[in-house]
């Protein structure tokens, strides 16, 4: 469903992503690994429209979306979460999800959503119902009425995932969802991602170490200096000599 060809991003003299090509198939969980600075976040930002590629093609269901704006890409069904949780200060978790329900409403009603400005009861009930489902799926029920500032770091990150799900994406891009989390929170995240996979969601997860994705990912890609150095099952990628040398000195961190 997603095919990236020759994707390159330069910041001045620095090449963050170099001639990268890969594809993602519907229903799989793909993990992208690489040491810090290997261009993972830049890659996701390019795909999600938060940065413009220098060159290359990003085919999403046959259409080149390279250079589109973020909201257009999200509308097309490709949604990204942030490594450092991005939230709406002052609002509760539920309110976050209602805002994130924007896209679902847009897809379902199109321009007819303008009519709901004058009689919105039904539309907002459907939305609130879906928001509660997503909160339950993400194990965030207890935090429903909590404001952004009152959430723990783990809850903040999970709320990012929940907002992404409210967008009803076909492909969800997760930027280091596990970084900074405790063991219990990572186990929780793993459960949530498994549930999503079972529901048929396609996921692209990046992380600086293989860690929890070893069991979860169907396929892995390893990046180094913005280029792909290995691709295969997580185990194959971990055994790949160039991956080992990329992590040299940090081999333990990788495994």
């Amino acid at each position: 469903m997603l095919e990236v060809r020759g994707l390159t991003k330069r910041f001045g003299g620095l090449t963050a992503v170099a001639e990268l090509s890969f594809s993602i198939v519907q229903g799989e969980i793909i993990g992208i690994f690489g040491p810090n600075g290997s261009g993972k976040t830049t890659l996701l930002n390019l795909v999600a429209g938060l940065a413009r590629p220098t060159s290359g093609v990003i085919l999403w269901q046959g259409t080149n979306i390279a250079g589109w704006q973020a909201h257009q890409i999200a509308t097309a069904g490709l949604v990204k979460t942030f490594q450092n949780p991005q939230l709406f200060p002052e609002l509760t978790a539920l309110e976050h999800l209602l805002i994130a329900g924007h896209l679902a409403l847009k897809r379902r009603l199109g321009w007819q959503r303008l009519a709901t400005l004058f009689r919105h009861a039904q539309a907002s009930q459907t939305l609130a119902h879906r928001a509660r489902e997503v909160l339950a799926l993400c194990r965030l029920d207890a935090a429903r009425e909590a404001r952004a500032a009152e959430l723990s770091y783990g809850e903040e990150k999970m709320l990012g995932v929940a907002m992404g799900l409210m967008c009803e994406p076909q492909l969800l891009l997760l930027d280091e969802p596990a970084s900074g989390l405790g063991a219990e929170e990572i186990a929780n995240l793993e459960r949530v991602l498994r549930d999503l996979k079972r529901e048929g969601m396609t996921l692209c997860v990046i992380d600086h170490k293989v860690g929890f994705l070893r069991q979860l990912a169907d396929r892995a890609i390893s990046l180094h200096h913005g280029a792909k150095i290995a691709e295969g099952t997580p185990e194959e990628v971990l055994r790949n000599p160039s991956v080992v040398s990329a992590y040299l000195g940090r081999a333990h961190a990788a495994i």
Partner: protein
Amino acid sequence: MKRLAGTALVAAALLALPLATQSDFVLTILVFAFLQGMLAVSFNLVFGYAGQLSMFHAAAFGIAAYATHLFGKHLGVGYWGGVVLAAALVAAISVVVGAICFRFRLREFYFAVVTLAFSEMARLTVLNWNSMTNGSLGINLQERPIDGTLAWYYVALGALAITLVVCWRLVHSWMGRAFVAIRLNDELGDTLGINVFRYKLVAFTAGSIMAAFAGSLYAYFLGSLEPGLLSIDTSLGIIAMVLLGGRRAVAAPVLGALVLTALPHLIHFSAEIRSLVYGAILIFSILVMPQGIYGAAAQLIRRHA
């Protein structure tokens, strides 16, 4: 339900008020307060909800005031025809000004300064286009589209009520949520599929159109047009009303409009001292009540409930 009952009670009291007071003075102040309230409530849609500090609001207000008169006079469409055409003109200008500002992603201070520059352009045009606007002398409006203070009272009250209902519906809809998303974190809103440019423009233009209606009414109640309607003083007055009334409720700015319209008439000092006292009251209340009168009252009620 409680809120609905409260609203009905306030509405009934305002509708019945002219029965209780025959005073032209009181009704006049209330008409001014209602029209200023319209201006403040619509400004708050742009500022308090969508987070855009527009300095173009006074321009929308003043342009509409002049345009109503000029359309009425030169196109022969009468007062109400002029009001509608003026609102359409302001909408068109706002779309252009907003599109320029938002396309260049001007934020916060930069947005305020650039909209102020557009506002000054409009004011200077009015000031210097003597053949049309009579320059700094302004125009005395002979026409009386609405006759008598009592009639004005109900027209102004109705216009304010419509403004409040429209803003309330917008704020409590999916579009209002998009506005809030833009104010609190527009990058996140963007990744969630909210077209930030579009909804900034919608908020800005909707606010300006409501300001236009307020301007068309205000000038004819006042009975004159002058370039000061478009000045930065008007913009600052609007901001003061919103800060004093409160930003977090649709109707809160009306409280600020009431106080700031009535206050100068209640302070019986010489003109110089009056401005000093007025300024001091404003500064003091904003320092003591950062969430405005509405916020302070809500907090008080919560503490005692």
